[in-house]
């Protein structure tokens, strides 16, 4: 909700600066952003009463005083004879109608009305609708204007099931479904109550006779309708959060006054229908209870002064104003007091609890530790899939049809992760995931599962570089304790036939319920130490990497340590990784051969051969100056 600073100031006795106003609004819990003179308010859903200048001024009263700038029409008004029937008073316990007829000639908009449209950026439509929008901004009570000449028969309010199209006053056509609160004439829908009126009865610049409807709709009757029909509606936003059930007549009297500022009124008629007498909520005065909730030591007088400033009526008990739908208990009152005092001004008080030693998830922690030590990376996947099995949990309202079931296995997610990384030029992939899996039989079943997938090289060091991740590797890895039954970890080979990939490396996969892993497996595993240092993350590159391999020959063995030391120091922004992938002592020739791989990648763009060659010359130059170190053929 956008509020013009000058308009809000007009509702306050003191005239705080934007900064002072902003500070107090935050203290009261009214988040906002300021752009020029506009305060863009984001109010919590329980504070529908603050969706107006008047509402915010009521809340700010304790700090800056509330002025009363609203001029209303306070003369008697003739009764309106209206053929109206309310078939659903539970949805609409209070409704008022005002009929106004004006002379042909209207005046240009007064400054306050013009400012509202120009500064806030709302679009002008016609005099009556514009006034309706402005009044809602001022007072928080929406009104709806029917062109009176289009209302010729009995007007009915009803909550009914229907399946028909309805053209809104903005010209969009919607199909009404299920139950809706409606205004109808002759069974024709003329307004989706509390959300948006229809085109057939809307006002235009030609309208001189208007029927203004001003109602209290139960929030539950309106909630969800604007989203359901994709309508942006300020009225629905307010009705959903609750308007003041006692404000309809005052709102319509203000409406008359604003019309008077812009046109000569020929006639006025008013009629109000009340179907339920609501009593304001009352609470006992109990300052001790408030202090007990907040941990404060507030005096009774101070407590009551704060409540009074917020519009609460104080006698031998506290009467909650009709616009505060959110206050029911002493906890609610405590929040009111805390807002006024300022959350940041309430002194902290320590609690003392004994340190708790948590051992519940030892199995998971040991598995995590074991796989991390063996070079595996943990992944977390979304559980949604299009694969439907008999035991799958079905999502009623999925994001799309490809995510309409809960997965019953980790396999497909892990295959996707593996292929994704192969496409990013990864040649040694070891991933695992531990996650709860949900299935249904007669009842919902929850099972924590471990899944792991491997493909490619066993590692990048010279011992593992040429070895492939295969079934034997997995068997050796998982057979930590020779006594365990090998069936626990059933190793399956995933066929590449159904996968869109040119890679040939075999893929192996294991999945098992964590609780099926016997205790003996865990005996030799360590609990992971989880001391935490948060690293500074560096954004990853989306550009391809390039690999360069070099075969060094070291024939002066005295220089070997020096050579290794210099290789270890190699570092550059575009060298993403480098490692020794081959090491060989040639006993016959008394030389050492060493294979070294550089992986180049830039965050700024794709590297050209020239970029890479320049960097290689820069890096290798000093190394090749070492006596007895060469790259044969280079």
């Amino acid at each position, binding site marked *: 909700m956008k509020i013009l600073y000058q308009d809000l100031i007009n509702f306050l006795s003191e005239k705080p600066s934007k900064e002072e106003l902003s500070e107090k609004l935050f203290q009261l819990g009214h988040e906002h952003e300021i752009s020029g003179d506009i305060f863009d308010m984001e109010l919590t859903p329980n504070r529908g009463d603050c969706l107006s200048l008047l509402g915010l001024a009521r809340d700010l009263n304790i700090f800056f005083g509330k002025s009363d700038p609203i001029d209303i029409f306070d003369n008697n008004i003739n009764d309106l004879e209206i053929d109206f029937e309310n078939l659903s008073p539970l949805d609409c316990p209070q409704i008022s109608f005002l009929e106004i007829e004006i002379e042909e000639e209207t005046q240009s908009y007064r400054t306050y009305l013009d400012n509202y449209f120009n500064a806030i950026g709302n679009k002008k439509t016609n005099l009556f609708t514009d006034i309706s929008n402005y009044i809602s901004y001022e007072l928080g009570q929406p009104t709806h204007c029917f062109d009176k000449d289009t209302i010729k028969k009995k007007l009915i309010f009803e909550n009914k099931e229907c399946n028909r199209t309805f053209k809104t006053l903005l010209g969009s056509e919607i199909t009404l479904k299920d139950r809706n609160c409606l205004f109808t004439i002759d069974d024709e829908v003329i307004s989706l109550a509390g959300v948006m009126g229809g085109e057939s009865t809307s006002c235009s610049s030609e309208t001189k006779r208007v029927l203004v409807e001003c109602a209290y709709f139960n929030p539950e009757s309106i909630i969800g309708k604007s*989203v359901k029909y994709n309508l942006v509606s300020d009225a629905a936003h307010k009705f959903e959060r609750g308007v003041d059930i006692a404000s309809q007549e005052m709102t319509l009297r203000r409406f008359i006054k604003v019309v008077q500022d812009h046109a000569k009124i020929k006639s006025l008629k008013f009629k109000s229908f009340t179907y339920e007498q609501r009593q304001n909520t009352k609470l006992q005065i109990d300052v001790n209870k408030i202090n007990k909730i907040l*941990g404060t030591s507030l005096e009774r007088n101070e407590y009551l002064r704060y409540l009074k400033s917020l519009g609460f009526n104080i006698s031998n008990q506290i009467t909650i104003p009709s616009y505060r739908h959110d206050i029911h208990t002493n906890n609610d009152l405590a929040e009111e007091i805390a807002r006024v005092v300022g959350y940041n001004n309430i002194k902290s008080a320590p609690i003392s609890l004994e340190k*708790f030693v948590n051992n519940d998830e030892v199995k998971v922690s040991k598995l995590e530790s074991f796989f991390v030590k063996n070079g595996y990376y943990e992944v977390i996947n979304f559980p949604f899939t299009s694969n439907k099995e008999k035991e799958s*949990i079905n999502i*009623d309202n999925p994001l799309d049809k490809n995510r309409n079931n809960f997965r019953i296995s980790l396999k497909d997610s892990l295959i996707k992760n593996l292929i994704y990384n192969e496409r990013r030029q990864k040649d040694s992939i070891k991933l695992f995931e531990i996650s709860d899996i949900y299935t249904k039989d007669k009842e919902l079943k929850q099972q924590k599962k471990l899944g792991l997938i491997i493909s490619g090289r066993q590692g990048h060091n010279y011992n593992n570089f040429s070895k492939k991740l295969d079934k034997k590797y997995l068997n050796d890895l998982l057979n930590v304790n020779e006594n365990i039954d090998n069936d626990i970890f059933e190793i399956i080979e995933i066929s590449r036939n159904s996968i869109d990939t040119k890679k040939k490396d075999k893929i192996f996969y294991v999945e098992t319920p964590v609780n099926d892993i016997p205790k003996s497996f865990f005996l030799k595993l360590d609990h992971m130490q989880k001391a*935490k240092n*948060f690293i500074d993350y560096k954004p990853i590159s989306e550009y391809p990497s390039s690999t360069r391999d070099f075969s060094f020959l070291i024939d002066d*063995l005295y220089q070997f340590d020096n050579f290794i030391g210099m290789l270890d120091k190699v570092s550059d922004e575009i060298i993403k990784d480098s490692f020794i992938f081959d090491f060989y002592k040639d006993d016959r020739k008394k030389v050492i051969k060493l294979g070294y791989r550089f992986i180049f990648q830039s965050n700024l763009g794709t590297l050209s051969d020239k970029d890479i060659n320049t960097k290689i010359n820069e890096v290798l130059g000093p190394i090749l100056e070492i006596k007895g170190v060469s790259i044969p053929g280079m």
Partner: protein
Amino acid sequence: MSNLDNINPPAISNELGGLHPINQTKDYLLNLLADFGFKEVYGPEIETEEFNFDMLNIKKSHPARQMHDTFYAEGKKNVLRTHTSPVQIRSMLASKPPIAFTSAGKVYRKDDDATHLPMFHQVEGIYVDHNVTFANLKDLINRILFELFGDNIQVRFRPSYFPFTEPSAEVDILSEKGKWLEILGCGIVNPIVLENCNIDSNQYSGLAFGLGVERIAMLKYGVHDIREFYKSNLDFLQQFK
């Protein structure tokens, strides 16, 4: 050293893998809260409306319960939990105060855009005892945030609204760039929720708080795009060893 036999092969560094940064952050928060005296409790991700909403004083008409915000399953028999609070409800029903629980894990909301994911992680805490006050809540939250972001961090409490706490607050910290960053939500447990869990609200009161794990991980690591956490990209994961 001229003899080949005397040459030591280059050292082979252990090629370690790594835990997912979200789980690292979640574990860090749980350990921190265990140090403060909170015991972790567990519960299902697929819940009933009763435990996910009703018991937490979230009314039938609350927007969060609508089909566009919450995933429903099995013909509306179940919901994918929208927070880890139902775990605390189940644990409160099974215990008697004083209690201090944390619940952590995956939660689901029907969102999918650049800044919102349909699945993310929360860590929540609840403490119920005699005379638990808003002043106690402030102290605990300050201690958590000082541990997370350092003793010099500036903390701001703002009024907010959650159906299950009253008073409710959102807590911000001041960034190095001078901008307030929203960190967590918290409040005094609504007495209705205590009564729903068979705890006498005249005798006991409680405090509760909830942190978004992705939010904390993004701030602590400096990751700007939440989607990076779920691409399973080894270039990304390898940084968090």
